[in-house]
Structure formats: structure tokens, C-alpha cells
């Protein structure tokens, strides 16, 4: 064992090496595998065609999320309602058949534990600090908020993990993103990560694993950390991590899949040693002052197109790089925005509060706090709040948050990925704008021709109330 100070990433990597080859690639053991309906059918088909089995079904959970409609799943008599789109129905049925065939636990659309994979994992205590976690979904980076090395994989890799419980990987470079100071009022974890992506760019973390360090992350809740790590991939990094600490342990204790008894004590002892050693070095370092972060929104079609809410739509000529100038010209045309327009003058017709980035109980509370006693603006035609899981939904309803949301004129839906990527019926109409708490503002992401502005749940709730992009600090 080396005496060189190690990063959090290096420690998790070292603990999972099955074999290292001469060319520098390693066979890495995978502790937890989450499976959803979109990226798994071809993997199961591959196993079947080759007569292969799943090596560790006990380390695997399957849950549908991307395709599910977020309208009622049962009728008044308790009968399960059919899914209208035949392709979605087929993909969902395929997962429901594949999971038991290969001995994997399947959480059904009508189970209270159902939800977005990246909400379900931490919520069930399935995602643990120091674990290697994969899923055929790039937002697997999310689980880094627990202190896990978690990253998205393609379908061939899903098949590889199902068959072997390992992946062949090359070590990534490391990048430190340090945020220190005091966040201002109304500045949330979503604003922090949007600001970070604005600083490093969408390719800033390519080839790297990010470690988020500094007092801002240490003082953040686990749910906030999940939001931050979730969007590491928007900064180009396949994974992002935050060292586990007492906040993490308190969050995990007693959850259904969390270790118990002697295993728990052993786990906590090991987890406490995972944080980067003093003197550990990173290939890249970025340092940001918390005081420089404002409530942040995106104006373009790349997650790096961010601005403080007090800003204006930028002019393409203000960018030094020629291809970025082209990209901005394209994206302002797509977004229907004119340079110099104040962001707070941009009207929205749709509001989406949900996604694996922002659909946990703290997100719903933040939105409800803004919505309480207020009404949705008339120009906002469609506004939905989609909890991340059935358990989040139950908790919100126990706190009466659903009533606040409904009384404000927004819809309270069933859990799923929903309008984040519009694979289900929840779509933003062409040419219309959406204030969205999701993670990607790509062209057509929320439906063909949709125009997305990314922001925090509180900011999206504020936009619902005023009908425009709004500085939430003016409402609270």
C-alpha cells in the first residue's frame, strides 16, 4: 500500500481492483447496479442470446422511471391503468419480465418505493459511501453525493456488469472543485452546480472525476449534495464525489438496504477514512467563492450557458471562441431570445419541478415555500410538480405540501423522469418556454422545439407565480 496521500476517488478505486493489466486498464468490481427500462432491454437480450446469467442479482435493483406517465396509475377501484403509448408499454413490460427472469428485485410502477433510479438508490440505502455504483444512465453521477464512485454506462457495459459484476476501466484524472465562503440567501445547491458548470464549461471535466470540496459542501444536506453531484456529467465529468461524513451517516442509518449491527459499525469506521488525505493532489483545481454565486438560470441550449438571474441575454460577439460564437447564434435563434434582453423579462408558459436533480423532499418543500398563499400566473399554461419517488410523494402529502401546490394552481403528479426528457406524455410544446429544475437544456430535450431554462426549485416556483424568469429573493 502506498504512503502517498490519496484522493477520495483513489481510495475507492484501490478498494475495488480485481485485476490490473499491463496496459493500465483495471478490472473494477461493481458493488451496486441500478437498472431501468430504457437502457437494459438489449443487455438482457444479449445475456439470453449467449446463455449467460446475472452474477449478483442481489446487488442489482430494477425500477421503471423514464417512460411512465405521471398521471394516476390506478383507477378509483384500484385497477392498474394501461399505458397508451404501445412502445412505452412494451419497454416497461420488457423490464417487468426480464428482472424476475434473471432473479433481480423489480420495483413496480404501482409500488410506493417506485421512483427515479437516482432517487430510489440513496432513499433505500442501496447506494452507500465508498461503493462503486453504475446504471445505464449518465446521471448516475448523482450518487456521488453519498460518497460513492458512481457513473453512467452504456448498454453493452450494463450487459458486462450483469454478467461479471465488473467493468474494465482506466483510471480517470482528478479535478478538485472547491467552493468556500457563505452562500447568500436564496442560493441553493442547484445554483452552485449551475454556476460551477458555467465556470468550467461542459467539457471542463472530460476525462476527470470531480471531488467537490470546501465548507459549502460540508455544510450542505445529503439531498443538496446529490443535486450537485447529479450534474457532474453536465460539466463533462463521468463522476463527481463528496466525502461522506456524519451528515451522510445520519441520512443512511436505518434505511431498508443500509447495513445493520456489526456491519454498520464496520462500515462507519471505513467510511470515516475515505475523505481525501491532507496533501492529496489533483490534476486540475478550480476554486470558487460562495459569495460570487447568485440564483442562476440558463439562457441557451448548453448547460454551460448560465447567468445570474440579474443578467441579460449575452451577445454572440461577446464570446472569444469562434465556434462558441456560432453555437450561441444558433442557440439564441432556437431559444427565440435577443441579446441584451433582461432575463427577468423572459416569459415562461410552462413550469416543470422534478427530475433526478431536484425531486426530493427538500426540493418540494423549497417550491412549496414560494408557492404558499400565491397563485400561478395566467400566462403559465402548464405547471407540474413530479416527486422523485412514491416515498417522497407520501412524505410531501404528510406535510400538506401537495395542498399548497394544488391551491397555487400547479399539478401534483406521480413519480418518474417526466418532462426532464419527455419520453413519457409530459412534453413542453414547440416554441414554448419552460422554467425547469431538470439538468439539460439541449435542443428538443423537453419535446421537439421546446425551450428550456434550468434553475432551482425555488426559482421555478417563483417563475410559476410571476410568469417570467424571476429572482426568488424578491418573493421571500
Amino acid at each position, binding site marked *: 500500500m502506498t504512503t502517498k496521500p490519496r484522493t477520495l476517488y483513489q481510495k475507492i478505486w484501490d478498494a475495488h481492483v480485481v485485476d490490473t493489466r499491463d496496459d493500465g486498464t483495471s478490472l473494477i468490481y461493481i458493488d451496486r447496479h441500478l437498472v431501468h427500462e430504457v437502457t437494459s432491454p438489449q443487455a438482457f437480450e444479449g445475456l439470453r442470446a449467449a446463455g449467460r446469467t446475472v452474477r449478483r442479482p442481489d446487488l442489482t435493483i430494477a425500477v421503471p422511471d423514464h417512460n411512465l406517465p405521471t398521471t394516476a396509475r390506478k383507477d378509483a377501484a384500484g385497477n392498474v391503468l394501461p399505458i397508451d403509448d404501445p412502445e412505452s408499454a412494451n419497454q416497461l413490460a420488457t423490464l417487468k419480465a426480464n428482472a424476475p427472469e434473471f432473479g433481480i428485485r423489480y420495483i413496480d410502477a404501482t409500488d410506493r418505493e417506485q421512483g427515479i433510479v437516482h432517487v430510489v438508490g440513496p432513499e433505500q440505502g442501496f447506494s452507500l459511501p465508498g461503493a462503486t455504483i453504475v446504471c445505464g444512465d449518465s446521471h448516475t453521477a448523482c450518487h456521488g453525493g453519498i460518497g460513492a464512485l458512481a457513473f453512467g454506462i452504456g448498454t*453493452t457495459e450494463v450487459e458486462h456488469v450483469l454478467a*461479471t459484476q465488473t467493468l474494465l476501466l482506466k483510471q480517470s484524472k482528478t479535478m478538485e472543485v472547491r467552493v468556500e465562503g457563505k452562500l447568500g440567501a436564496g442560493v441553493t445547491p442547484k445554483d452552485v452546480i449551475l454556476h460551477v458548470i458555467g465556470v468550467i464549461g461542459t*467539457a471542463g471535466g472530460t476525462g476527470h472525476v470531480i471531488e467537490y470540496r470546501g465548507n459549502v459542501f460540508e455544510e450542505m444536506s445529503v439531498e443538496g449534495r446529490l443535486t450537485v453531484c447529479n450534474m457532474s456529467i453536465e460539466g463533462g465529468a463521468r463522476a463527481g464525489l463528496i466525502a461522506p461524513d456524519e451528515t451522510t451517516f445520519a441520512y443512511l442509518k436505518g434505511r431498508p438496504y443500509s447495513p445493520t449491527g456489526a456491519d454498520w459499525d464496520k462500515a462507519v469506521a471505513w467510511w470515516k477514512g475515505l475523505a481525501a488525505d491532507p496533501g492529496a493532489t489533483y490534476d486540475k483545481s478550480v476554486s470558487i467563492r460562495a459569495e460570487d454565486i447568485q440564483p442562476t438560470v440558463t439562457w441557451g441550449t448548453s448547460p454551460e450557458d448560465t447567468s445570474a438571474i440579474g443578467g441579460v441575454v449575452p451577445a454572440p460577439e461577446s464570446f472569444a471562441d469562434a465556434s462558441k460564437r456560432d453555437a450561441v447564434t444558433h442557440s439564441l435563434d432556437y431559444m427565440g431570445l435577443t441579446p441584451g434582453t433582461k432575463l427577468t423579462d423572459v416569459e415562461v408558459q410552462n413550469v416543470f419541478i422534478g427530475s433526478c436533480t431536484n425531486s426530493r423532499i427538500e426540493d418540494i418543500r423549497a417550491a412549496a415555500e414560494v408557492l404558499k398563499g400565491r397563485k400561478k400566473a395566467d400566462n403559465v399554461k402548464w405547471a407540474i410538480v413530479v416527486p422523485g419517488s412514491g416515498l417522497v410523494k407520501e412524505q410531501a402529502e404528510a406535510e400538506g405540501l401537495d395542498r399548497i401546490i394544488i391551491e397555487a394552481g400547479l399539478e401534483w403528479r406521480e413519480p418518474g423522469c417526466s418532462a426532464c426528457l419527455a419520453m413519457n406524455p409530459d412534453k413542453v410544446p414547440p416554441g414554448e418556454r419552460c422554467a425547469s429544475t431538470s439538468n439539460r437544456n439541449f435542443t428538443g430535450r423537453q419535446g421537439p422545439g421546446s425551450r428550456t431554462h434550468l434553475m432551482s426549485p425555488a426559482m421555478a416556483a417563483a417563475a410559476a407565480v410571476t410568469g417570467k424568469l424571476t429572482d426568488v429573493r424578491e418573493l421571500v
Partner: protein
Amino acid sequence: MQPVNAIAGRAIPFGRKNVDTDVIIPAHWLKTVTREGLGKGAFETVKKEPGNVFTDPEYAGAPILIAGDNFGCGSSREHAAWALLDMGVTCVIAPSFSDIFSGNAFKNGILTVALPQEAIDRLMEVAGTDPIDVDLESQTVTTRFQDRFAFDIDPFRKHCLLEGLDEVGLTLAQGDAIAGYEAKARDTLPFLARTPATAAWREIR
């Protein structure tokens, strides 16, 4: 997987930067349960732009695609690689690629070639009129105008592509090493090595 070596033919001069996988294949195409037939949905939004290279008959069936920096960023959907294959593309040349996309491409026998922007600019020019030759064995991209650009590739990836090797089969051959790791982890990291769904240790192979 089909072995890959020499790829020769027309190249689609796309050239755009930060092409995300939502652009390569929009989400509504992901409802399939097979790998085939995604070429129809490839670059669906770009195909609606007047004068785009994807509906230009000049480049129909071209085996090479030329793009800008950070190609394949965004979602991990392997459907992006399947869509390219289905439209006949087996090689993408760009200054850089997202990590997940380049892995997915490799696993489907698509060669990703990273070259400096100057080389891309030159190849974009050539692609308008003439074919391009990509040779994996010698790691070069050449044109009939004596252009010659060398590229780097991970030796393991090169070997797998040239031989058409199935990675799952290769790893399964290391079953003893994996079982050895699991036996050790049961003692050192029991809280990771099992879940409540794990039966008695002895039942694990």
C-alpha cells in the same frame, strides 16, 4: 462484434461542436427494445435544417462522420452508437469525444479518431469532394492529396477492434479473479459485499 480495420469512403462534413447524444438520437427514439433501425431517427432535428449534410444525397451511406470538439456529450444512451451504425457510420473523426460516448462507440465497433482542429479543418475541406482513408493498423488518416494525419488509440481498444473481440467473454474468462475478490470483500467490506437480498454467503459462487 465485427472486426474493424481500414475504413475508406466519403465523410460527412458535419463539423459542429458539442454535439450531444440528444442531437444524435432524440429521446423518443429510445423506446425500442432492439439495437436495429435507429438510423431513421439519427440527427432528426438537424435533418430539418435547410442545406444540412445528413439529407444531402452526396453523403448518403458515407462511413465516416467529421465533427467538432466534445462529440457525444450528454446522456449515456448507447442508442447514439447504434444510430450511427445503422446509418452506416463506422468511424467518427473529431478533436475530442465525451468519455461515455467513446466507450459506447468502441464497444460497437465504431472507431473514434481524435485529431487536432487544424486536421479537422483540412478533412472537412476534402470531405466536400473526395473520400478519406482511415487505417487503424497504421493509425493514420490519409487523403488522395497526400494529407497524412497520425492518431493515438489505446492499445487494448486497438487490439479488440482489430480482432472483433467480445469484452464480456474476455472478462468471464477471469471468473477466478472475480471470485477471489468477492471472497476477500466478504471479510473486509461486508457492508458493500452484501445486501438484504443476499442469501447466505455459501450460496454465492
